[in-house]
């Protein structure tokens, strides 16, 4: 059988294409490495999900090699298994979108033309996108309706142009402490807003609304309220989904991919033929598959005649911080407000999405605020040290845990700014190390440009100002080049010049007529927001293009 479309990977990059094409009557198959879990399989079991990493592969079976490159150019090699350094996210139908927090921000128009607007930065490969915000806008709007985005649109100086005046779903219920936050922002003259979320506040789209169960990020949603690729799209179409199908090779002639080869859970090999192939296995793994699929026509790897596959890997730069609110500084009413659980703390700041410093114009970013994750074991483990940094145990530990967790609460923030693409940050394949399938593992070559830290530091200071104004104690933050594994993009950037890009503006490879890449790999720069909304929107955009091609 020859399918119309074969999609490799079932996350936010692949699912919109499965949804659109299968609903248009095309024959679509989705190959997903992970298992097919559904709502009834999900629970808030901290041991399973957060301590034993139920939804990601065991590193002894599947790992990465990580080469960390410092400013001097010295390389330190880490074996991901040996150092428990994981770059896996959600290995399951729907991918990591099942586990996302669903903080949804659009890119701004200037994010599409970073080089033109802000100029080149030494040591970085900044490029404009080959499409504009205006071309993407209808698809951002489509995601709001089809996947479901809730929020309350408020004007601020960096609010992007929109074709609709409001989100289709009202904002989620909020913890009262957001009022303290809003007051602090008002005092500081900062413009904050309610964070849009890919979470339905009420039953809609044939899905249940949020149950305010007190756990969201890192956990798959048992109600279907979270707009995962599985709940919002794959369960709403008749694309054939083959779980536990690890694609290890694509074969091609000189102009077309003809087959995808995958191993099932018994390591039995299968072949899938299709007219069009869409690769969306997550940025690192998509590059790895192309590099591992070399043949006589493409000896450097598929779609890699210009040796660009894997290059310009990016993450979200920035970091995180927090402050603690203690009962001793609060009246009874405020204490009760602080300890309310289940309700969301949805506040974001884009006050400095662009800023000037010492006469220079900088691209800034986004800061999202949220209560410390409710995971109890990890919160308790933070109390193992005393104020001097010495480890404690026994009654001293018991008393510290009890006091901290019952009479205080931490408000956290996450900073998102551009991780500049460079020659030193890229994906390659290890010559010797293999995974449980016998396939060469991916190598993640890591480098963070110093500019990223400068911007992150500026944004973090603004967040600290808010926490101070709110009266928080123990304020602390960390801005670093440490890569968040769930915010990865690039490796197959799109562009108009086939010499410097892997994909054309339609996300089709320059080299092969029937191969598209639609996960975050396509992004030449990442914007200063979490990527998921943009991945969804772009995938809906490419779905229109493929639909036309097949018609």
């Amino acid at each position, binding site marked *: 059988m020859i399918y119309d479309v074969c999609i490799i990977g079932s996350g936010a990059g692949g699912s919109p294409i499965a949804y659109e094409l299968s609903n248009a009557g095309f024959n679509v198959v989705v190959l997903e490495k992970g298992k097919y879990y559904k709502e009834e399989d999900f*629970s808030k079991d901290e*041991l399973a999900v957060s301590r034993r990493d139920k939804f990601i592969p065991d590193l002894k079976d599947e790992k990465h090699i990580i080469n960390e490159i410092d400013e001097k150019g010295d390389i330190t090699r880490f074996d991901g298994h040996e150092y428990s350094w994981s770059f896996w996210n959600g290995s399951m139908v729907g991918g990591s979108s099942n586990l996302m927090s669903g903080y949804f921000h659009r890119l701004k128009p200037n994010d599409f033309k970073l080089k033109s607007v802000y100029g080149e930065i030494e040591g970085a490969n900044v490029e404009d996108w080959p499409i504009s915000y205006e071309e993407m806008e209808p698809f951002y709007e489509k995601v709001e309706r089809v996947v479901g985005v809730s929020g309350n649109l408020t004007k601020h100086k960096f609010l992007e142009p929109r074709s609709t005046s409001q989100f289709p779903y009202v904002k989620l219920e909020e913890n009262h402490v957001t009022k303290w936050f809003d007051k602090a922002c008002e005092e500081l003259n900062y413009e904050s807003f309610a964070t849009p979320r890919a979470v339905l506040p009420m039953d809609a789209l044939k899905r249940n609304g949020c149950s305010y169960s007190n756990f969201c990020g890192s956990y798959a949603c048992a109600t279907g309220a979270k707009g995962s690729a599985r709940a919002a799209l794959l369960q709403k179409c008749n694309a054939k989904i083959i779980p536990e199908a690890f694609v290890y090779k694509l074969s091609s002639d000189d102009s077309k991919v003809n087959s995808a080869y995958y191993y099932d859970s018994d390591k039995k090999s299968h072949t899938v033929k299709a007219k069009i192939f869409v690769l969306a296995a997550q940025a690192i793994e998509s590059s790895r598959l192309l590099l591992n699929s070399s043949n006589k026509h493409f000896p450097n790897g598929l779609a890699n005649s210009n040796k660009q596959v894997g290059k310009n890997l990016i993450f979200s730069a920035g970091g995180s911080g927090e402050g603690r609110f203690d009962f001793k500084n609060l009246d009874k009413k405020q204490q009760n407000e602080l300890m309310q659980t289940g309700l969301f703390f949805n506040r974001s700041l884009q006050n400095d999405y662009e800023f000037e410093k010492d006469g220079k114009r900088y691209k800034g970013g986004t800061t999202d605020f949220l209560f410390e994750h409710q995971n109890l074991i990890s919160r308790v483990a933070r109390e193992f040290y005393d104020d001097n940094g010495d480890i404690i145990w026994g009654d001293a530990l*018991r008393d510290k845990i009890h006091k901290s967790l019952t009479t205080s609460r931490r408000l956290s923030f996450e900073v998102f700014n551009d991780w500049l693409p460079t020659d030193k940050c890229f994906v390659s394949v290890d010559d010797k190390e293999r995974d449980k399938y016998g396939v060469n593992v991916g190598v993640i070559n890591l480098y963070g440009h110093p500019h990223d830290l400068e911007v992150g530091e500026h944004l973090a200071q603004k967040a600290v100002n808010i926490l101070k104004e709110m009266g928080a104690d123990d304020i602390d933050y960390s801005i670093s080049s440490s890569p968040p594994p769930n915010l990865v993009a690039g490796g197959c950037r799109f562009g108009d010049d086939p010499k410097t890009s892997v994909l054309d503006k339609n996300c089709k490879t320059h080299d092969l007529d029937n191969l598209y890449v639609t996960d975050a790999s396509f992004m030449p720069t990442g914007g200063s927001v979490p990527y998921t909304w943009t991945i969804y929107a772009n995938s809906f955009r490419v779905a229109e293009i493929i639909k036309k091609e097949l018609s």
Partner: protein
Amino acid sequence: MINRRKFLKAGFLSSVIFISSGCELFSVTTPKETLAILQNDLFPHSKKMGTDVKKYMQIVLKHSKVSDADKKFIKNGIKWLNEEAVLLFDSTYVKLPSDKRQEVLKSISKVKWGRSFIYDNLTYIMEANFSDPIYGVADGQGWKWLDFNTGLPQPKKAYL
């Protein structure tokens, strides 16, 4: 007679650890013997909350996602803890009175491996105390102690 499967299942916690004094063999212990006393010394409140930490250790040390390196470190830590006890008081850890055991813990907390060993043990203890009742080692008393409302739905089966 213990069959092979049961022996392998019991394996890690019942394995023999040789404790040296200088170059000489001083005594032997098992992870099971030392951990039972050590983990109570580190967080006696577990017992008050009715948590079966011993049972949890049997579960977690067989878990596929707990690495061999983690298990090896626990085993080495038990050996080194006992050797520190021998060095300080000429006795294995388990045979010392409570106050002397605390002194051994204070001594190892001053070195890197000792801090890591205590941290890892505390982590397992807290996993036991605050685990969902489906695991059969805690019944929610830990949650109550910290006014914690668990997320819903709770698991219908343990992830082992």
